[in-house]
């Protein structure tokens, strides 16, 4: 088991290195650089740009830059973000938790909602409720995430004025709130972005969960359970769901990259100060060190996510656990 873990860790590290290197060259070979992108006023004296290019080694040959960067990464130093005028690690430290919060809540919401929906649909298989819910989740599943975000923003924030439209908390009052008020304020700000993200993946999970449940519902042991006199509720919640959760756990690993991609749009529309927005802005400003770090972190998340999913699978499925 330990050897297996080690092997997976090495594979993961290799993949991350591959991805990071590809990103590095992709960025540095592209036209433009962070200095030109940040000092964008035509009135900026050229000497200033030259100065900063030299300071950040952007005037060095690419191979030298790559070598330096590798050494820095090996020491856990992500470099300095010129547009933010801060070390990349500090920029990311202020953004990553926000994204993790958003994704965590969205993940939880989407799995709970998706599994519940799938269960309702499967229990009412072939009836109008199943049909309606199926069409409904397909509708959301087929929606571009940014458009859903825009529409929710339009309806809830512009037309009905129900939820706040930007940020993670009220910038003015937050410092003066008590603990519970703060929690409430944060949750209030979380509703729209988390629901947007959750709706999209919940729709996918519901579709998947329904199929998995129906697969399991046809198994012999379900008939056994019924023949034992177990109630319908017990059959579905105990016997069927427990088995049908296994394939859904693998979705956990697959959902992460989807959520990461979705968070780019959702964070943009709702001005959520997380990694997705940071990355999009960093592309605009050609913030190489920040972008490289963001890509590395994204792939760590994705690889880590699938790792966790596998581990979870092993915990839940006795057949895998004991072999």
């Amino acid at each position, binding site marked *: 088991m330990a050897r297996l873990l080690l092997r997976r860790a090495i*594979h993961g590290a*290799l*993949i*991350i290195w*591959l*991805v990071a290197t590809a*990103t590095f060259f*992709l*960025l540095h070979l*592209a*036209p*433009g650089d962070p200095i030109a992108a940040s000092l964008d006023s035509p009135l900026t004296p050229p000497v200033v740009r030259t100065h900063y290019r030299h300071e950040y080694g952007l005037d060095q040959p690419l191979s030298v830059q790559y070598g330096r960067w590798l050494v820095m990464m090996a020491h856990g130093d992500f470099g300095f973000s010129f547009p933010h005028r801060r070390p990349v690690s500090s920029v990311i430290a202020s953004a990553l938790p926000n994204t993790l919060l958003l994704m965590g809540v969205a993940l939880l919401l989407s799995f709970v909602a998706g599994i519940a929906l799938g269960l309702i649909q499967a229990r009412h298989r072939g009836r109008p409720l199943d049909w309606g819910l199926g*069409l409904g989740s*397909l*509708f959301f*599943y*087929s*929606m*571009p*995430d*940014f*458009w859903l975000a*825009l*529409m929710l*923003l*339009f309806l809830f924030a*512009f037309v009905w004025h129900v939820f706040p439209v930007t940020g993670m908390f009220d910038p003015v009052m937050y410092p003066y709130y008590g603990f519970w008020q703060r929690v409430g304020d944060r949750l209030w700000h979380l509703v729209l972005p988390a629901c947007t993200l959750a709706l999209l993946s919940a729709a996918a999970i519901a579709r998947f969960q329904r199929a998995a449940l129906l697969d399991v519902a046809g198994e012999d042991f379900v008939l056994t359970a019924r023949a034992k006199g177990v109630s319908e509720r017990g059959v579905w919640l105990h016997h069927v769901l427990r088995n049908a959760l296994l394939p859904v756990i693998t979705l956990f690993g697959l959902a992460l*990259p989807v959520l*990461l*991609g979705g968070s*780019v*749009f959702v964070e943009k529309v709702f001005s959520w100060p997380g990694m997705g927005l940071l*990355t*999009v802005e960093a*592309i*605009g400003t*050609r913030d190489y060190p920040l*972008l490289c770090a*963001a*890509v590395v972190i*994204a*792939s760590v998340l*994705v*690889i880590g996510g*699938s790792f966790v999913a596998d581990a979870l699978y092993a915990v839940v499925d006795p057949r895998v656990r004991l072999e």
Partner: protein
Amino acid sequence: MHPLVWIAAAVLTTLACGAIARAGDGDSGSPWRIALTRLRDNHAAFAALCVIVALLIVAALAPWLAPYSPIAQPDIVRLKNLPPSLAHPFGTDFASRDVFSRALYGARVSLSVALLAIVVSASVGTAYGAIAGYVGGRIDTLMMRLIDAGLSVPRILLLIAVLALWAPVPLPVLVLLLGLTGWFGVSRVVRAQVLSLRERDMVVAARALGASDREILWRHILPNVLSPVIVSITLGIANVLIVEAGLSYLGVGVRPPSASWGNMILDGADEIASLWWISTFPGLAIVVTVMAFNLLGDGLRDALDPRQVDG
């Protein structure tokens, strides 16, 4: 794409629909015939197919159907930003262009980008998966590791980065990029299928009879891989449509003045509160189209599944 290509596509799909509608009862006959019958009996999938055909026809006939030119700016001061009316069912945008006409032409751009991109990913994915599955062993492992690496990068981030950094990217390159980042799933499906087929009797027999690897791949394995690939393609089109819309929404996909549904949403995104129609209608068009392809994909999966038994 050339309008003739569009018309051809629409005609072919219509013929396919006709064939499906005329197909006899599927209790007997070839697997394809059974699949067609099943598809016809699946009302939702069949409706979706009709929607897709209609969309293809609309896209093909856009120049004749659209009331205005998609790029004409009849009066940039007085006719801009009009709300929906009889003359302009979807309203007009900032340059006094008719949103309805642009949505029709947008169907062309969005659909052709999606279709062509999926052709790229399906061919690359099938080839890659077939080779990996057929060769097996260490090469297969290595090839699958590469897929893992590819899948660990969020696709949308990668595309945004490439497209923004190397802007402006011409449309064919955009299509290529969309295709080349979307084949991992297909190749996994194909590989799994090939792995299981490799040991089947007919392949073993063909090998015993001295057939070459290429012949076996071509004659025995690929035809059997076709149905999962068809399903992947249909669902893939839905996915590519969304990805392209997202990129265009960020301003790095299809560039103006060409109308794609995504960049039409961008046109109105900042003014969603004042000029809701500019973003809403193209968004609905995407939802309907993507839904149709998803429904059709689901239907095809059920129809082509040999395990599925009637009743």
